């Protein structure tokens, strides 16, 4: 289905800044300007009517709002406006008519632009134009509008708040700081106070959120935004009294509180409570069947809980009402594309993948996740509802759209509870990620989310998922890197009590990755110091409605500050050697210290003096024993030992890499070769198996696995590998199927072998090897 999204763009001839005669790249916002004289509004024939229309809209009385707005736009279209304020009123009327009417949205923008052209001091018109741009997802033009105001009035509280919203939308700048500037300019500006409250709530800083929400309400007891934040937190925390108070306050102004319930739904999404979000969004739609954000939240989250048809229908409706929404367009386009995907139901899982990869991926991922399900169910005392849907995307952009509606998400996988999505291993370069550990990680979220009734904070959920990856063995789960230890040395890591911000508001690109690792170390520390039951007990604490300090106190018997100190001491001990090795000459030195210098020297000497190089690599290895990168000392030492035909030493070193590094393709291949050459078939199989979880598309790996497994008497594995070869669409499909028939025969599945052979010989009756096997099976 062809689907195009509208784009609301500035009309250059009428754009606010051009009308004001300003250069868009003019002075910075902080430039000093003379205070402007107060602006006198002109006579506006529609002032009362537009105020009444907007009031009706806020109450949820769309009919009255539409009738009033239509009267204004009819008058405007017939007789035009007489001054800037009348243009502004006309624009506001068009905005009210803009639901499902893209032309009205454009007319609104044109009217706002004319209002500004008629009076460059009419900041309200510029503000509304910017807000309209932002509402229609055009942040750059919104920013230009707000910058235009701020250049003339740098402390305009409304424009500062609007700019904060742009920054939040773009994920750039510091929206919290900009909103605080707005509050500094007008300490009783309820909208700005509520905005800050919402940001705190979304960062899971509930105490601060409550303070700001209360300040918003104190400043304006009718502030829907303030009550919504307060109400949403009360809802999430099960505080029914505060929730009821908030609802009563909101409904006093808005008898059909669609916006309030949509806000609750969005807050629920932030806590990954998708099923509740859908229910809340449905209530919002029930109150206002034209409220686009409610359809958006409903559809997006229906898709996240596997209600594919209902989700699509809701998004179709949202897109029909708001054709500017690129997120919805992208998601609908992806759903169209997914019609070609194959669905494989097996055991407790439903695998949905591109047709050319579905069979291969399902062969391996289902048994792995069945194993994960059983072990996680025991550990966390919880069983997520099944079937669990696992979607694979060949193109990362598609995975990103599935997750957030837009391309550009950096993550490898995502868990919405009983729906997991991830890149196919083919979606990235070989060696960039491990699809087995990624799936295990995402499935763990389904358990930790469920066990905590979706109340576990993101940082702990991620830490547990990485810890569970590591428990599997096979080198899975993140390990220490030079940059992580450097960040420790330089003091740039957040303490545990602030780790949520490391995920939600990273200050530098690597911080999210560091936060995953730090969270997993915290989990390790807790398990080591408090026993295996402590982590599930923490989840239970969250499930019972406790916040993080409460959980720390009850389960760990400590305060957040004490846990920060304990974690600091734990990691300092754990990485004592590495810290000394990577620490630079000064606190800000990020060169990697002695470790990196020694490695560099070793690499430089490899061509000229191998003995010296070896000695340097061994020194480096002693300095940072945890380091297992394929650019690290163990890998170089393994390569040198192999070159010298010292396979024992080569194996010792390479195993150090493969047992810690989940994406080490070359190292695992070396280990497989060395072990096979030494007759260690079991060890070779283990290495080949690890390769398969890095990149399952190498037919030779599967052939080797099939052959070695058969030789070891693991007939079932041999059959699996033969099936995998077929699933990859080999060049010689008939020969691959013949080999499968042989493997089936060896496994005792004579009927299966015969069935396979008949199909092969039906295609190629003269296939002599297959004929001989058929005769053998029939005892001839």
């Amino acid at each position, binding site marked *: 289905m062809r689907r195009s999204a509208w784009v609301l763009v500035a009309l250059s001839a009428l754009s606010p800044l051009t009308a004001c005669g300003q250069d868009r790249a003019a002075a910075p916002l902080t430039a000093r300007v003379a205070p402007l004289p107060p602006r006198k509004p002109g006579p506006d024939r529609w002032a009362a009517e537009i105020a009444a229309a907007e009031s009706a809209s806020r109450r949820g009385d769309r009919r009255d709002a539409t009738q009033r707005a239509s009267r204004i736009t009819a008058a405007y279209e017939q007789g035009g406006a007489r001054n800037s304020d009348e243009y502004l009123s006309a624009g506001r009327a068009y905005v009210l008519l803009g639901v499902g009417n893209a032309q009205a949205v454009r007319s609104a923008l044109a009217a706002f632009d004319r209002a500004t052209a008629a009076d460059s001091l009419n900041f309200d018109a510029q503000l509304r134009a910017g807000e309209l741009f932002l509402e229609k997802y055009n942040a750059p033009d919104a920013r230009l509008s707000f910058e235009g105001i701020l250049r003339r009035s740098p402390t305009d509280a409304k424009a500062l708040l609007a700019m904060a919203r742009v920054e939040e939308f773009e994920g750039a700048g510091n929206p919290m700081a900009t909103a605080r500037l707005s509050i500094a300019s007008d300490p009783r500006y309820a909208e700005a106070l509520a905005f800050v409250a919402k940001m705190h709530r979304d960062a899971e800083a509930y105490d601060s959120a409550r303070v700001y929400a209360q300040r918003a309400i104190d400043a304006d007891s009718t502030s829907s935004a303030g009550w919504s934040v307060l109400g949403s937190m009360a809802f999430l925390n099960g505080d029914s009294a505060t929730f009821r108070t908030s609802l009563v306050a909101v409904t006093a102004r808005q008898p059909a509180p669609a916006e309030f319930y949509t806000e609750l739904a969005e807050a629920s999404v932030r806590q990954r409570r998708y099923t509740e979000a859908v229910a809340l969004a449905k209530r919002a739609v029930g109150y206002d069947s034209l409220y686009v954000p409610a359809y958006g939240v409903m559809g997006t989250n229906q898709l996240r809980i596997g209600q594919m048809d209902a989700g699509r229908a809701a998004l179709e409706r949202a897109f029909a009402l708001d054709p500017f929404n690129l997120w919805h367009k992208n998601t609908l386009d992806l759903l169209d594309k997914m019609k070609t995907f194959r669905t494989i139901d097996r055991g407790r899982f439903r695998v949905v993948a591109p047709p050319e990869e579905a069979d291969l991926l399902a062969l391996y991922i289902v048994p792995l996740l069945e194993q994960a399900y059983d072990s996680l169910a025991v550990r966390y005392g919880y069983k997520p509802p099944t079937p669990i849907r696992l979607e694979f995307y060949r193109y990362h952009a598609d995975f990103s759209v599935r997750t957030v509606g837009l391309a550009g998400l950096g993550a490898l996988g995502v868990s919405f509870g009983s729906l997991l999505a991830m890149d196919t291993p083919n979606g990235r370069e070989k060696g960039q990620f491990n699809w087995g550990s990624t799936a295990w990680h995402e499935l763990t979220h389904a358990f930790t989310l469920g066990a905590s009734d979706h109340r576990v904070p993101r940082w702990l959920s991620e830490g547990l998922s990485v810890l569970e990856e590591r428990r599997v063995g096979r080198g899975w789960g993140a390990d220490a890197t030079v940059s992580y230890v450097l960040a420790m040395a330089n003091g740039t890591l957040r303490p545990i009590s602030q780790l949520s911000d490391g995920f939600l508001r990273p200050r530098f690109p690597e911080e999210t990755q560091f936060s995953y690792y730090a969270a997993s170390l915290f989990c390790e520390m807790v398990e080591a110091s408090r026993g295996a039951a402590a982590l599930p007990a923490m989840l239970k604490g969250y499930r019972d409605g406790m916040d993080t300090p409460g959980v720390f106190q009850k389960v760990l018997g400590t305060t957040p500050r004490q846990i920060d100190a304990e974690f600091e001491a734990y990691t300092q001990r754990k990485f004592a050697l590495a810290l000394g090795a990577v620490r630079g000459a000064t606190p800000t030195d990020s060169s990697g210290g002695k470790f990196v210098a020694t490695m560099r020297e070793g690499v430089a000497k490899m061509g000229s003096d191998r003995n010296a190089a070896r000695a340097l690599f061994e020194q480096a290895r002693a300095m940072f024993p945890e380091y297992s990168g394929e650019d690290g000392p163990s890998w170089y030492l393994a390569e040198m030992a192999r070159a010298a035909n010292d396979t024992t030493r080569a194996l010792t070193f390479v195993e150090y890499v493969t047992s810690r590094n989940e994406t080490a393709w070359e190292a695992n291949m070396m280990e497989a070769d060395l072990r096979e050459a030494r007759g260690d078939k079991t060890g070779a199989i283990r290495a080949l198996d690890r390769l398969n979880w890095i990149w399952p598309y190498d037919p030779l790996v599967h052939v080797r696995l099939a052959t070695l497994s058969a030789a070891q008497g693991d007939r079932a594995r041999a059959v699996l590998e033969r099936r995998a070869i077929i699933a990859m669409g080999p*060049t*010689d499909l*008939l020969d691959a199927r013949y080999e499968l028939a042989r493997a089936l025969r060896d496994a005792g599945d004579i009927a299966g072998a015969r069935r396979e052979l*008949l199909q092969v*010989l039906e295609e190629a*009756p003269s*296939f002599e090897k297959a*004929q001989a096997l*058929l005769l053998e099976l029939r005892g001839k």
Partner: protein
Amino acid sequence: MPVLKAPNRVVVTATKTSNERNESVFLQYFASALGMDAADADKDGRLSVFEVFRFARTEVGKVYTSSNRMQTEHALVSDSLLAARVAFGKTAASANPRITALIAERQALESEVASLRSKKASMNVEAYEAELERLLLALAEKTQAIRAAGGGT
């Protein structure tokens, strides 16, 4: 292709028109197929021109798909029926009349299999499979007999 095409002539081209001007990889796969059992699609021990063509064309498609590139070459064959009859290498002919007779019997069985396949859609599954297996076993025994008599395939 229209210029080169003629009766009793098989023309294979790496590209479909003169507009496909990028360097092609078809020839390298066509040449390598000549030494590969994998190219023998019907596993009869003989490589027909069409089998080699099809093998190379498939491999070319994979090369472009796996490297996420738009395919800029599309190979053509002028007469696929003739190309399927023209083979590289030796045929199964023999001077031994016993072997010649066995080969003829096997060819008859192969024809029966082909005939059975053409009726598959109209037959009961069990009956089809039983008849197919009977023919295939007979075929397999015939191949064994040819081998035992010193013949090749």
